[in-house]
């Protein structure tokens, strides 16, 4: 189980949503498909795939909403046999984010929607004013490290 967030202010609202709504997985992502925070996944690679797909689903359903209704659909619910998925957008002063959550019989769509409404407020309140992020100081040899890593990755080392 991984509980992680890219920025600390995301952790508390996301954890509270998970606790309150009793969901199995929760993933907060940037509309570009980058993971911002997550609960319940075990592999970082799975998180990235889920983010890419969730961003795609959200973006395409937004577009579909634009074409059908003249405004984007803001939430999506898919009910599987045992598990259900809910994807919706939330706005903060840091910009929009997308929540993907998976739940089973321990929760319900009603609970998820209700606690998502609280999550939106909590996340918006927690979001600090955006400041230019410090850039990572990669050392002078990073190109050599990159080349070595890529060579290992491709079996050329």
């Amino acid at each position, binding site marked *: 189980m991984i509980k992680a967030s890219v920025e600390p202010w995301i952790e508390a609202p996301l954890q509270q949503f998970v606790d309150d709504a009793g969901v199995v997985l929760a993933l907060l992502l940037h509309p570009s498909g980058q993971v911002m925070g997550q609960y319940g996944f075990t592999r970082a690679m799975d998180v990235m795939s889920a983010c890419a797909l969730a961003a795609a689903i959200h973006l395409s359903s937004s577009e579909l909403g634009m074409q059908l209704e003249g405004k984007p659909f803001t939430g999506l619910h898919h009910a599987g046999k045992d598990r259900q998925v809910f994807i919706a957008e939330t706005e903060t002063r840091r910009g929009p984010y997308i929540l993907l959550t998976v739940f089973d*019989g321990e*929760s*319900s*769509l*009603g*609970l998820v*929607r*209700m606690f998502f409404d609280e999550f939106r407020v909590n996340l918006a309140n927690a979001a600090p004013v955006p400041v230019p992020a410090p850039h990572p100081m990669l050392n002078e040899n990073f190109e050599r490290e990159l080349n070595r890593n890529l060579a290992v990755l491709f079996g050329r080392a």
Partner: protein
Amino acid sequence: MSSPFTAILDAFSRQRGVQASLAVSARDGIAIESNLQIGQDGTRVAALAASLYAKARKAATAAGLGSTGFLQLEAEAGRLCMLGGDDVILVVVGDPQANVGLIRMELIRAAEALA
């Protein structure tokens, strides 16, 4: 336009101390129809009541007690009464002075009528 629930919910609302009555989807926890006094949040009541009822049903089954009927949650400033099946749960929100006996009888009668 009235649904099968309209008359049932209206009857609850006429009872003393009743602040809300709802027909809720048991699977989703979403209100199908509701009769709410000002200040009552039907979305919340529906989601939370359905979840509580589902939990009690599961617990009763796990404890070997069989199927679940009437349920009452009593709190300092109000009470929730409910009764339902696999599809629909009828939920009544009352203040502490509400007559639980009457609500219970009415819920049982309504559930029989819906069945």
